[in-house]
């Protein structure tokens, strides 16, 4: 009986592994931010890309921090994230290569339409100060944070720093500061239930708001400090030899192609009356003097480039 048990175990494991290696379509494992995933954009990309390419895109929704961990461990082939400072470390430590900026939009500070802290019309720095002041006089939660080491969370930390607060101390004031440690949609749902303020990416906010899940209002948006830039990077194949590097590069080429950029830009336009994401490739290429390109360069370029040449892994054609 022990022999039967052993054989059965080996059969199941070997069976699934063999299936995935030889019979199933090739897989491209992608770890991505929850903000892109929760809007439904990935479903659309997956459907379109799989229709014309013989590959199975496996998309895991995680915060930027987790996505980068997946990539460092070699558990995925490619990541799409939005935290330039974390991405810089990731490239410098040799884990990732071939970074391309694919899209941008803006974070927004959302809150109840009654705006009890009075933040409409001021900039994000002043808004956070007012929220702190208001929150310290309340016995309920007035600020809901992702708290999951995601790109949005890291943006929140930098906003607190810009407003002159120590993040560790401010997040410890748990009477008014709620850290939920989960994805964008869940964080907004919690903020809605508590009538609290939160930092959100505009894409997820618009989706939930249009679907009627939340009644929170976008109170502050479209300022330089709230810029949100999404990039794609492949996992370095010299570090993790098993990764599907060839397909990862093909997929990056698709994302920056006119077709990929149009898909990103048009996604959700019909339902939400505005684009959830804006393609970054065209403006960066053709309109270097525009304000948005200046902002992207200031925020998300490293040494004056979206991917310094030493991190291009012999794929200069990606940048021509």
């Amino acid at each position, binding site marked *: 009986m022990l022999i*039967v048990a052993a054989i059965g175990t080996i059969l*199941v494991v070997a069976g699934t592994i063999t299936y995935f290696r030889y019979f199933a379509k090739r897989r491209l494992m992608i770890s991505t931010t929850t903000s892109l995933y929760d809007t439904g954009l990935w479903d659309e990309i997956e459907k379109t890309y799989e229709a014309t390419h013989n590959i199975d895109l496996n998309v895991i929704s995680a915060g930027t921090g987790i996505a980068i961990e997946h990539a460092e461990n070699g558990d995925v082939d490619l990541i799409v994230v939005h935290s330039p400072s974390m991405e810089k470390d990731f490239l410098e430590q040799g884990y990732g290569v071939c970074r391309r900026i694919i899209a941008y939009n803006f974070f927004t500070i959302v809150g109840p339409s009654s705006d009890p802290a009075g933040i409409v019309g001021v900039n994000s720095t002043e808004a956070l100060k007012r929220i702190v002041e208001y929150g310290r006089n309340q016995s309920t939660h007035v600020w809901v944070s992702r708290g999951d080491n995601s790109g949005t969370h890291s943006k929140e930390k930098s906003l607190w720093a810009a407003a002159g607060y120590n993040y560790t101390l401010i997040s410890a004031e748990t009477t008014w500061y709620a850290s939920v440690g989960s994805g964008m*949609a869940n964080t907004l749902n919690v903020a809605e239930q508590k009538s609290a303020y939160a930092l959100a990416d505009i894409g997820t906010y618009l989706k939930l708001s249009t679907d009627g899940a939340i009644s929170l209002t976008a109170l502050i948006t479209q300022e330089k400090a709230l810029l949100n830039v999404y990039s794609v990077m492949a996992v370095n194949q010299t570090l993790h030899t098993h990764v599907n590097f060839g397909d990862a590069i093909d997929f990056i080429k698709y994302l920056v192609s006119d077709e990929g950029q149009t898909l990103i830009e048009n996604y959700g336009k019909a339902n939400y009356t505005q684009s959830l994401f804006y393609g970054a490739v065209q403006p960066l290429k053709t309109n270097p003097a525009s304000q948005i390109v200046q902002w992207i360069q200031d925020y998300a370029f490293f040494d004056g480039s979206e991917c310094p040449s030493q991190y291009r892994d012999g794929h200069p054609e990606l940048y021509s």
Partner: protein
Amino acid sequence: MNEILDGIVKALQLIFSGDPTVYGIVFRSIFFSGTAMILATLWGLPIAMLLGLKDFRGKSIIKGFFNTMIGMPTVALGLILFLIFSRAGPVGFLGILYAPAAIILGQAVLVMPIIVSIATEAIEAVDPEIMNLAKTLGASESQASFAVLKEALNGVLLSNTASFNRAIAELGVVLLVGGNIAGTTDVLTTSISRYTNTHDLDLAIALAIILLVIVFGINLAVILIRKSKIAYFLSQRISR
């Protein structure tokens, strides 16, 4: 209120129109948890036979261990398996993290203690005379063991259904080692969580209804098996 009613109506439409997304998820749930149950039986039954039929030192400690493991929190097991299956972990070379094999193995580990505990009890409850009788009639040791196993079949089936139920309803393992990849490793529990978050309530409700039907249906089956087991023992007593 309207949102709830509307969600339920749309959910029923999804279920009865045979929506491919919904049934893909249902199929994966049943397939993963069913395979996990079979695997756990393959591992657990030999152990249960040993514990039920043989006397040895430390037996009660082993039985206590499996009884305790029934209560294993799924997220804790999920975390442990994540660390083991990740490329950075000891069996990372298999490359099974975020693939069905990881879910099946994980759920099998999760439910094996249920198989061991219930099956052991069932085997112990079999009249020891049967073993002796079989041996007297010239059966070998293993043939006699099989005779006992046959008598304990109801209990073994009970352990199977209970473990399938636990596997299909758990979230921690399947989320942490499966990754909830749409079309590959997303199952009922992970999809309900995902679609509730993104406010696709019709899908979430449809999947929840199906999960409840499966779980309650199986619980009902368990009750019926239990009843028939009691009826079986009673009939034995009376006939004696």
